[in-house]
């Protein structure tokens, strides 16, 4: 750790109040260039503690920066990981209030729900598939608290990997007979196709993101408990949305996920 507890708490407060007040802020590494990735995760944990103290609960985990293009852009070899909280959940077909957000973007992804715990190190795609209860289609609404979505790896990790809202689809399926690698996704904004992808755009296979999350947690002496809901990372590019927009994502073999921005 390169910062003291007081600085850590003040950075957590700085970022969390920006989220809750829907206000963009300057990235934290501008004032604290010495921050490390571990510091970033420590700030994220402090944000979690603030939310839990207020009665909010963790609703799931997520992987971010999972596409090769994004990882290259950030100069990293592994994705980053964040937390989903109960108040972030939007029902399929529901409304997302843009007044509560800064500059939201939407990404289509596959979410996993585990029936058995996953423990690293050495967790791999096979172990993830064996531990998967079912997959569901999902859309994540990301909303960096940083100006113009400009950040570095440490800053985005501290900002809880831009977590903001998420919508879970209605079709849950076991992974048997489902090829998540070639599973297609088509995102439409106001009826027009704006993004397309196949599952392989996330680290070659979405389950790889879950395996890397298990290995990341193992390094901290933690595991992913059975029953955990995990979003594996955006397969499509992130598409900006504003009030009045309607988003629908169709998933091959998994139905569709939709929401309106009001």
């Amino acid at each position, binding site marked *: 750790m390169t910062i003291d507890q007081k600085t850590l708490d003040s950075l957590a407060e700085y970022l969390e109040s920006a989220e809750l007040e829907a206000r963009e802020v300057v990235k934290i590494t501008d004032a604290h260039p010495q921050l490390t990735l571990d510091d970033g995760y420590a700030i994220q944990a402090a944000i979690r503690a603030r939310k839990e103290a207020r009665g909010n609960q963790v609703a799931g985990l997520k992987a971010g920066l999972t596409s090769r293009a994004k990882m290259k852009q950030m100069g990293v070899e592994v994705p980053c990981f964040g937390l989903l909280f109960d108040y972030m959940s939007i029902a399929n077909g529901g409304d997302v209030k843009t007044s509560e957000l800064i500059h939201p973007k939407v990404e289509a992804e596959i979410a996993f729900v585990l029936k058995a715990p996953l423990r690293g190190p050495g967790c791999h795609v096979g172990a993830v598939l064996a531990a998967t209860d079912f997959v569901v289609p999902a859309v994540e609404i990301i909303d960096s608290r940083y100006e113009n979505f400009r950040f570095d790896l440490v800053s985005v990790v501290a900002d809880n990997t831009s977590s903001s809202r998420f919508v879970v689809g209605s079709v849950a399926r076991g992974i048997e007979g489902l090829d998540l690698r070639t599973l297609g996704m088509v995102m439409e904004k106001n009826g027009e196709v704006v993004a397309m992808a196949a599952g392989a755009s996330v680290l070659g296979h979405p389950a790889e993101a879950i395996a890397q999350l298990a290995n990341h947690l193992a390094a901290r002496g933690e595991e992913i408990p059975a029953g955990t809901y995990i979003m594996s990372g955006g397969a499509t590019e992130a598409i900006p949305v504003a009030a009045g927009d309607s988003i629908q994502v169709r998933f*091959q073999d998994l139905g569709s996920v939709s929401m309106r921005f009001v």
Partner: protein
Amino acid sequence: MTPEQIKLHGDALYQALVDRQPLAPLTEREPDITIDDAYRIQLRMIERRLAKGETVIGKKIGVTSKAVQQMLNVYQPDFGLLLSGMVYAEGQAIPADSMIAPRAEAEVAFILKRDLDGPGVTAADVLRATDFVMPCFEIVDSRIKDWKIKIQDTVADNASCGVFVLGGTPRSLRGLDLSVAGMVVEKNGEIVSTSAGASVQGSPVNAVAWLANTLGALGIPLKAGEVILSGSQSPLMPVKAGDFFTCSVGGLGSCSARFS
């Protein structure tokens, strides 16, 4: 354009194909060339190939995806004819130097069991007339120097068709929604693009209906038994000897193309 000009340009493109010597863009040499002129030139180029013993085995749609449209700055689809000399079997090495500036693109091929005679062909008609579909690679090539093509150039040049490979297992369209079928394209083992069928006019089925209606207006049917290439779902990828491409389509299996 006069019939003499059409013949001249069609013959020149045929010669460019045979000699692998690209030409300057037609749109530079004939600034007033229309798309109609271009299709007549295409027909002349094809006649020359048919005279050498090739047969028409299908049709292709080109310039369908936004990605390819932006790359070429061409904002409408076009079509060309598939000839018997363009087919490579999967696994068979394609000599890269048999073409001028080859580029690979991954798509879905339709094999028809009934004629489709436009105009008035709907997506339902396409589904009814399709025997099966397969993932495929089309290797496009341009007889125009450095791919400096406008729509008239590529149309005259048979929609820049080179050769093609059909892959794997035939699948029925029953129970298969091609618009959401994901596609993963790998070059030499590395993923270069992922997309879905919606990238071609909302669905490859729509693209085939467009082709049937466009050709139908010209009195040309899509025929039972023909192969119809529905348009690229990947970026155009330059190829060289030694390259190995695979594309996998959700629910359809895969196709590979190997270059020597």
